[in-house]
């Protein structure tokens, strides 16, 4: 089980004088800023990937950059690993505590420091919730574009660590495309600003390197975000297809027509039927797949372009195309999509969400292969697909109480990720590698590439104490996992055409 860290394959677990560290940290933090009792630390034992759990050694809750700096320096001196945590909504175990670590909770950095509508800039602390930024910007006709589905709860610091995307990222970009600057603290206690409000900074684009680095390089203590004007008008349509492959063809045709939708989502039959039963979105349950397409912009323009999308879908063989007649119906279309995950709860006690990205053109064959693997492992898989950007979320349904099902779900998940790599894609589109996909990194990257990642980490964190055992596997782990040779020659899914 990957929730167990391995001394030899991940990072050495060292004994340290816990009482001495408590004595050093206590005066550096607010009176309620250090937790050491197991019952108080229990809520920090996992993130959104609740199957993996591990108790930290201590939990620190700083309020200022100076306090973060002090904690990091104390941990470096004591050689204690540090795991930073935002809101704990991550889905890949990135905030899973390393044994004995100091868990650095950034939840008290919860202030929006300034919002300048003319410059379209918001300066925020990393514990601010994603949605809170858009709420604060709304009176000015602005919003913060990245909108991961956890946006009501997830924090900006976590978004930076994961380079979070969202439903609208095809048009509006990922976190990295909407960031201006970061204040970071390294384990050596250096406080630096990467980037700035200007559109570039001299030298290397370290802001871009740090974004998505999953807490392995530094701790973010402030983020400067770029805001976007709220579009005038948004409209959506729903197209139903008799075959999933045809929905994939419609997606390619929409892109080929030069249209960049604000959102373009696909659901297969298992997913759409579950969502329909869950919240009556009005989905046609006889369809093999549905496509949801939203356009935004000036009203007449949106109406005209959505007519083009409707014609393209019909041409691709849609059995039904329905435009939302009003705002209520548009919201209903999306409510179904957003309910797809919770709706799985009615089909099975547990589900395991996979997060690969594939070139859109490979969708048909990848779905066929997933169906084959699903039958082989005797676990149903529902597919939800950010069709615009190729990000596929197969949801593996299982029952953890039944012996062997969790192991089978994990194995099937790994196979699906390797399938995504074989199709020319990647093992993670938006959830991050974290702890969960650490072994599959050995499939996607060569030994030399993993060494380069380790060297880049060491440029920020020479001790390796920041979030060990995550995101970048050691070569020892890859050797153990047995995937290095796979990269060199014996490829899985040899029957798939490679790019």
């Amino acid at each position, binding site marked *: 089980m990957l929730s167990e860290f391995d001394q030899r394959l991940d990072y050495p677990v060292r004994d340290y004088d816990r009482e001495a560290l408590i004595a050093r940290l206590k005066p550096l933090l607010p009176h309620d800023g250090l937790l050491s009792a197991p019952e108080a630390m229990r809520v920090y034992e996992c993130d959104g990937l609740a199957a993996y759990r591990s108790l930290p050694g201590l939990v620190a809750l700083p309020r200022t950059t100076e306090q973060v700096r002090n904690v990091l320096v104390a941990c470096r001196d004591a050689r204690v690993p540090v795991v930073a945590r935002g809101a704990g909504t991550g889905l890949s175990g990135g905030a899973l505590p390393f044994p004995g670590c100091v868990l650095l909770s950034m939840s008290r950095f919860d202030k929006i420091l300034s919002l300048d509508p003319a410059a379209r800039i918001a300066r925020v602390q990393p514990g601010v919730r994603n949605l809170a930024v858009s709420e604060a910007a709304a009176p000015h006709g602005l919003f913060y574009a990245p909108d991961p589905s956890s946006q009501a709860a997830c924090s900006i610091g976590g978004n930076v660590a994961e380079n979070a995307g969202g439903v609208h990222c095809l048009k509006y970009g990922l976190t990295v495309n909407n960031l201006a600057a970061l204040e970071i603290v390294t384990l050596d206690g*250096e406080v630096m600003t990467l980037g700035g409000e200007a559109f570039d900074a001299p*030298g290397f684009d370290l802001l871009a*390197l740090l974004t998505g680095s999953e807490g392995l390089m530094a701790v973010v203590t402030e983020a400067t975000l770029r805001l976007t004007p709220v579009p005038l008008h948004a409209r959506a349509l729903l197209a139903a297809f008799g075959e999933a492959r045809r929905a994939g063809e419609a997606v390619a045709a929409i892109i080929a027509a*030069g249209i960049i939708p604000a959102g373009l989502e696909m659901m297969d039959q298992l997913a759409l039927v579950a969502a329909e039963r869950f919240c009556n979105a009005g989905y046609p349950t006889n369809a093999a797949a549905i496509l949801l397409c939203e356009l935004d912009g000036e009203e007449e323009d949106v109406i005209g372009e959505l007519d083009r999308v409707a014609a393209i879908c019909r041409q691709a063989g849609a059995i039904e195309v329905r435009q939302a007649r009003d705002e209520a119906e548009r919201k209903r279309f999306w409510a179904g999509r957003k309910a797809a995950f919770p709706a799985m709860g009615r089909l099975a006690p547990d589900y395991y969400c996979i997060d690969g*990205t594939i070139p859109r053109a490979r969708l048909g064959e990848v779905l066929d292969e997933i169906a084959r693997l699903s039958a082989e492992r005797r676990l149903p898989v529902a597919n939800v697909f950010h069709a615009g950007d190729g990000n596929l979320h197969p949801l593996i349904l299982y029952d953890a109480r039944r012996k062997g099902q969790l192991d089978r779900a994990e194995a099937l998940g790994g196979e699906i990720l390797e399938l995504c790599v074989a199709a020319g894609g*990647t093992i993670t589109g938006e959830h991050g590698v974290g702890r969960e996909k650490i072994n599959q990194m050995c499939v996607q990257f060569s030994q030399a590439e993993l060494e*380069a990642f380790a060297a*880049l*980490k060491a440029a*920020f964190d020479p001790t390796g104490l920041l979030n060990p055992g995550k995101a970048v596997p050691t070569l020892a782990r890859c050797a153990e996992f047995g995937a290095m040779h796979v990269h060199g020659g014996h490829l899985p899914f040899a029957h798939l055409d490679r790019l």
Partner: protein
Amino acid sequence: MPTSTDSEVVAALAAQVREAGRRHNALKIRGGGSKSFLGRRTAGRTLDVSALTGVVDYQPTELVITARGGASLRDVEGLLAANGQMLACEPPDFGKGGTVGGMVASGLAGPRRPFAAAVRDCVLGVTLLDGRGRTLRFGGTVFKNVAGFDAFRLMAGAMGTLGVLLDISLRVAPRPRTERSLAFEEPWADSQARLGELMRRPLPLSGAFHDGKVLRLRLSGTERAVEHGAAEIGGDAGDLSVWTELRHHRLPIFAAQRLWRLSIPRTAELADLPGAQLIDWAGAQRWLASNVPTSEIREAARAAGGHATLFQGAVDGEEVYDRPPEALFQLHRRVKAALDPAGVFNRGRLWEDL
């Protein structure tokens, strides 16, 4: 991962890199040479990458093109245009020798930058020859990809100091169906107020520059969107060709002997500096033809919250880029050493001691 770069060409380059590393020699990477005026003058033998030509893969419906580092930028843009697509970062073209690798390494974006994308936003993946002569693939060909550190984005603007770009996967965008140019004859102070208001609204803007006398705005999109936007904004109809001149640095100011580029926050106030000025990026990029002492110009840019680059006219040994604070500079050194431990590539191109 697709790595279709010609293995013999790469092997020859890798051998030169390893040899230079062993001897602690520096190598100067050269594609078409169109941007050799950028950055500090560097010593070292030339590593000619012009044999790395051609497009490796292009699938318009995937919105991605993969080209070799030495591929002609003009050819690539021509191929994209023929398929109704473009690079959203609108890079300048300094002559027919310009390469895709040079575009990424220089990180220079055109008038569309504040409205669409930086060069780094267009890079989805690279195959890099590192300082040990190893071939590394970072990123990929898909837009959403968070596996591994985003070392590919780091290549944009690094001026070739981190390695040789063997091939590059670029995100492409559909070409707007129509464009329109609008003009307002007014001083910059008035334009600044106008832009402050326009930039807050969802308009199909794709360019905003002031040449000292006239504010010009460009609109891009569908016919209806551009029509509607133009009606909202007002102004006089203008000529679109000026945008091409601006993009490719062919307006008169770019002929200046000593030309500065100041990159500052869009709404910041910049102290008065003597010399001709062209204000692009709605205020965020200032081209300044001036012989004012370097320290004064750098100070003014910093005071406005940005930085100044001596874009052309540096004398031998003169620093071109503003220097980051010491801790950040040391971090640059460590990042460079992570990929190029012997300091083989473009030594001194960014700063004398990097």
